[in-house]
């Protein structure tokens, strides 16, 4: 379970998160939507611990991990898998080494078992036989999927997806949506998914949250969000330039 309480984060004088509160029960898929630059990626980085909040709590299974750092925080990170918005593959390593990276550190598996898991994870994202390629030999969408394979390889309990379907063709994107749903069903994974795509949001979300001006301004099932009376939410999900949001 993830509990976010009154989370604040600024960069210099720029306030990005300004009191975010959100509860995500175990096994739930939470989709976060919001404008570009509203702090969605920052929220995920705070959750996993690569950034530290200025103020507020992040509760993982009841423990506040916000004040932890270094070694102690790294122990909690074991529970997480993260797909970065730009994949963030290690460019000096092959695809197989990238996917095996977490397996080597988080599990005691031998080399053969690791190779098997690497192939499994790549197959799950629809990639086969590319183990020996280097990241610069991959297309943008392939990189993203390798990043996803790397995040799910060691069986994390919580997976953070930063725009999993951006830059991927519609068929593959839908396959990834199905993978997200499958991981939730089979492994009871808790997920936070950032997406700009309302169709895939509807498909994967148990609940959705909209981030606006550093706060969660709407929270509910995809149905409730679609039928929200809030003009800001309406403008955003229908993608209209006209409306209360002016600063785009």
């Amino acid at each position, binding site marked *: 379970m993830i509990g976010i309480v009154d989370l604040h984060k600024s960069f*210099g004088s720029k306030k990005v998160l300004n009191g975010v509160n959100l509860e995500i029960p175990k096994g739930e898929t939470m989709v976060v939507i919001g404008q570009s630059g509203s702090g969605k990626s920052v929220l995920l*980085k705070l959750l*996993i*611990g*690569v950034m530290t909040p200025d103020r507020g709590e992040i509760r993982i299974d009841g423990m506040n991990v916000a004040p932890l750092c*270094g*070694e102690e925080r*790294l122990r909690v*990170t*074991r529970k*997480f*898998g*993260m797909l*970065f918005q*730009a994949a*963030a*593959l*290690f*460019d000096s390593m092959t695809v197989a080494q990238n996917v095996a*990276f*977490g397996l080597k*550190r*988080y599990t005691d598996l031998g080399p053969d078992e690791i190779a098997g898991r690497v192939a499994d994870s790549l197959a799950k994202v629809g990639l086969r036989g590319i183990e020996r390629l280097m990241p610069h030999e991959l297309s943008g969408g392939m990189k993203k999927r390798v990043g996803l394979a*790397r*995040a799910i390889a060691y069986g994390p309990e919580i997976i953070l997806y930063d725009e999993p379907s951006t830059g991927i063709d519609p068929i593959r994107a839908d396959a990834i949506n199905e993978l997200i749903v499958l991981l939730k069903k089979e492994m009871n994974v808790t997920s936070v998914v950032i997406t700009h795509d309302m169709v895939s949001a509807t498909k994967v979300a148990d609940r959705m949250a909209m981030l606006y001006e550093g706060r969660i301004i709407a929270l509910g099932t995809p149905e409730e969000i679609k039928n929200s009376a809030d003009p800001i939410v309406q403008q955003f999900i229908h993608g209209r330039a006209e409306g209360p949001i002016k600063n785009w």
Partner: protein
Amino acid sequence: MSRDRNGSLLAGFFRQMGEVWILFAETFRNLFRKPWERKNFLQQLEEIGARTLPVVSLTAAFGGLVFGLQTYVGFHRYVGQGSEAYGGPIISLGLTKELIPILVGLMVAGRVGSSMAAEIGTMRITEQVDALFTLGADPNRYLVVPRTAAAFLMLPCLTLFGDIIGIICGMFYNVTIMGVNGKVYLRNTLLYLQFWDVVSGLIKAAVFGIIIAVIGCWQGLKAEGGAEGVGRATTRAVVIASICILIVNFFISKFLPG
């Protein structure tokens, strides 16, 4: 050094000193904690050693030659014909204690410190450093510790190697080119050059190794703002490390027993 948004140049300087110090302390602590990143460490040893050996050989050779040349001129002019063979110990002393450690330090700063900043800086701006953390590898342990440990060990080796080349070249200039009495030259050198002279140069080199690696990694880790930012970090790593080497060198010379 960049000016702080709301501070003076001096405040910025001390803040940055603090950052380096914190990084160094963290690295030092992690050095004694298992597990070590052995693979990265060996890779860095090779990187630092193999990458700089040609450059170090060349600088040491010409350092030895030119130092031999001026010492010859000095003895010839001020002490007199036939005294040049006494230049041997002076050349060796100057080379092992000062010239070679500094030349090696500056060369490695240019060659290796810059590539550390560029590599880690690129990893930072492409979020690979963050990815390391999410996959269970502490960036300090994975990146900074192996580099610092490797530089700490490799710089004395390179310096010792440079000492030998420099001394040989100094002797080559005097004995072979200028016709100084080789036996006297060699006897004087062996008689007056002390073990400690060489060791104190190696101690300096080890300190320079730490300076180069920590400053290179520090600049890399705080790189931001795309390719331009990485470029800036790279240049800064070299400039700052080189200046630090020259300053620290003076103080070590001053305070290490003669």
